[in-house]
């Protein structure tokens, strides 16, 4: 990428936030929706894909406790807590990245998950960053 293209991209990225905030849009929260359209709102700009990626693992104690718990079966609470923490972390990153792009909504949000090694949990939250405004 040439310096001219890079300068153009950087300048347009820095313009997105002031432009949309200056239009008096509803910016009191960032709506995260799994649907294509946000009810009662119309999409006025699609800013592009946005991601929140995280890989987490329990510590040695948590993994040993989970291994012992799996002997008798049932819910493995240590790993339930791990997946819940990973989900929150991924959504937090997704919303932070959406705010960075100047969006006030993330539409078509989805989760994808996988495992790395035997104890690491990977979660990707992704969607489309958008600017929405209430329908009059």
């Amino acid at each position, binding site marked *: 990428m040439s310096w001219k293209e890079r300068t153009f991209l950087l300048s347009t990225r820095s313009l997105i936030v002031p432009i949309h905030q200056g239009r008096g849009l509803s910016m009191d929260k960032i709506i995260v929706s799994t649907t294509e359209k946000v009810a009662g709102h119309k999409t006025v700009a699609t800013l592009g894909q946005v991601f929140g990626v995280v890989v987490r693992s329990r510590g040695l104690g948590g993994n040993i*406790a989970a291994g012992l718990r799996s002997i008798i079966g049932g819910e493995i609470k240590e790993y339930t807590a791990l997946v819940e923490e990973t989900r929150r972390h991924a959504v937090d990153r997704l919303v932070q990245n*959406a705010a960075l792009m100047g969006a006030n909504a993330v539409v078509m949000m989805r989760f994808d998950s996988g495992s790395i090694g035997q104890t690491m949990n990977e979660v990707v939250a992704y969607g489309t960053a958008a600017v929405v405004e209430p329908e009059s």
Partner: protein
Amino acid sequence: MLRTIVSGVAIAGVAFMLVVTMQEPGAWPALAAALLFAMGCLWERRYHAAQQGFPQDTRFNLTGERFVDPETGRVTSAWVDPATGERRYVDEGDPPSPSA
């Protein structure tokens, strides 16, 4: 509970290896391994747990997202700062009982 037992066993292992090392200094690598194991059991980096009380900072708005935290069994709500996208989780107490 189970994790506390595992941590207790790890600490007992360190104490045992400490006694052994005092009598036989050549056993220090086993003591080092026991210490490493105990540290792994005792310290764990967790993602931020829910806070007690609502954020005093007016930057934060309620997102409407509420769920029962599977670890604590308590109702948790998510708050967001729309300017930065920073989110916080607030502990709202026990969920309503089914009979209520």
